């Protein structure tokens, strides 16, 4: 009887440990890289992939993965600005041209451009500056032939720095526009 109790107790302990470690792992995964909801929408919104049967030529998992990588690259490639400026540099125009060709290839995707500033200057003025940076990028995408309805903008001013800390190393990374894919 005692032994039976012990066994049950042990099993409970083991399962508790599994449960905890499972939780912990789950927690870590979330921290490392939550999938933005917009991306999930895009991927689950292509039902053809899921119904592909064995024996067909294409690799079932390869296509969504490639798409995921492309999307990740699209969102990670940012453009940067000079202090208190919102005009596009040559580098920024090059990045925007890539964005335009991606958007042309995926007409079902929309993009939201976020304008950001470094911590210098006043918060209020930076809300306007962030807006103008996003607008510059938006205008250029439209100039490159993207339908204006597909490109929205939002300014975060200096509220969402990419790099914390003061100094030009952090500031130059924070004066940026970011690109978020929105599902159609």
């Amino acid at each position, binding site marked *: 009887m005692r032994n039976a109790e012990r066994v049950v107790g042990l099993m409970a302990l083991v399962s508790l440990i599994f449960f905890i470690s499972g939780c912990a792992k789950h927690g870590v995964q979330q921290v490392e890289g939550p999938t933005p909801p917009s991306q999930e929408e895009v991927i689950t919104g292509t039902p053809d992939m899921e119904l592909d049967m064995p024996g067909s030529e294409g690799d079932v998992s390869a296509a969504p993965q490639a798409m995921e990588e492309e999307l990740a690259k699209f969102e990670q490639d940012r453009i940067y600005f000079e202090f*208190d400026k919102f005009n596009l540099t040559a580098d920024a125009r090059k990045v925007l041209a890539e964005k335009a060709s991606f958007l042309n290839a995926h007409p079902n995707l929309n993009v939201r451009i976020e304008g950001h500033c470094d911590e*210098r*200057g*006043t*918060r*209020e*003025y930076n*809300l*306007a*500056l962030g*807006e*103008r940076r996003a*607008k510059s990028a938006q205008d250029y995408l439209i100039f490159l032939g993207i339908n204006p309805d597909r490109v929205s*903008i*939002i*300014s*975060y*001013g200096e*509220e969402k720095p990419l790099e914390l800390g003061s100094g030009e190393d952090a500031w130059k990374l924070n004066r940026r526009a970011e690109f978020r894919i929105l599902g159609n």
Partner: protein
Amino acid sequence: MKKILSLMIVLAVVFPSVLGAQRVHIDIEARGFKRMKVAMPAFAGPKELADSVWSQCAKDLEITGAFSLLDPKGYINPGPISFIEPGTLKDWALIGADYAVAARVERQGAQVNLAVQAVEVSTARAVLNTVYTTKADSVHRGVHAFMDALMQKALGLEPIFSSKIVAVQKVGKKKQLYTMWCDGTGGAAIKGGGDLVLNPAWSFDGKKIAFVSYWKNNPDLYILDVRTYKVELFSSHKGINVTPCFDPTGTRIAYTLSKDGDPEIYIAPLGGGTAPERLTRSWATDISPSISPDGRKLAFCSSRAGTPQIYVMDLVTKKVERLTFQGSYNSEPVFSPKGDMIAFIHLAEDRRFHIALIKTDGTRMKVLPGTGRGDESPTFSPDGRLVAFSSSDGNIYVTDFMGTSVVRVTDTGGFTEPCWSPLME
């Protein structure tokens, strides 16, 4: 000539005491203005309570910008004492005190009594002899009443301590509204405005706070009723809806929209119904409006000359004049409650952002030392003698116009964008 001069000096020295110092005019901009020195020995009463009330009084004395506390280390009798004996006045005079303050703090059931005595040392006049009774959890309100009475009775100054500061508080990655009394006591977070709120602005009756929230994934303007905590969406045009400022007459609100392509300043009636009237027309950024107390002028920041500078628009004729010419970055103008001055942010020669003041005619620009670590978001006290601001350390400070008294109001950090309310009832 010499005789006249010496007579004037005698008059100046004699007259305040002859008049009983009932209403001494203090020109806070005068170069010769010196803060009144106060000796305040430890308060009598239960030690922990008495010491904490003393500390708040010491902080509030400094905040007034009119008094400065003499270091207790130099006192002949450091206390605790509850009464300034007339025979000891010479001791306080000896260390240079203009006023001596003594107090007793005691608990009485759920209440606390703060019995204060303030004496003008040179005349032995009892400026104040009052008992302030408060609930045990709001002793700070007793201190506020004491400080306002001391300023009024000793120097004829208007009260300030029944006013609040609203600010943005950063908690983790979120930002929320936070209100406190102007000395940092009675702080309370206002939660539930979404992940990011900005630009809080108090209405001139203290009943509403306009602010920006990204609640609907766009910087939109909301108005909060301070008593009911009910929030109404005020403006949600495409683009930014930011930097609200109430018209002191209480009927209109000025703010910045980018719906027409670039940030421009608009004004609209508070009740809504009519489309906002566009006030500025330039290719550049126009932002941060502030309406003068008489409702006739609008100060704002514009980059139309290449760098951010302060401009003033006549709201009747719509004529615009540039106010600042010094420096390459001047932003966030705010009218003083008396309308004679504008405070703003100035990138100074030390390459730091400082609070600066300028007369509304564009003369007498003055850069305040502040913390020297980068100051932002100036806001005037209700009587217009002081400016609160946030610094790069995330705390809120109050300074006088001389810049000799810079008092930290908050302790925890994480605060930005303070806005000082009018006096509350």
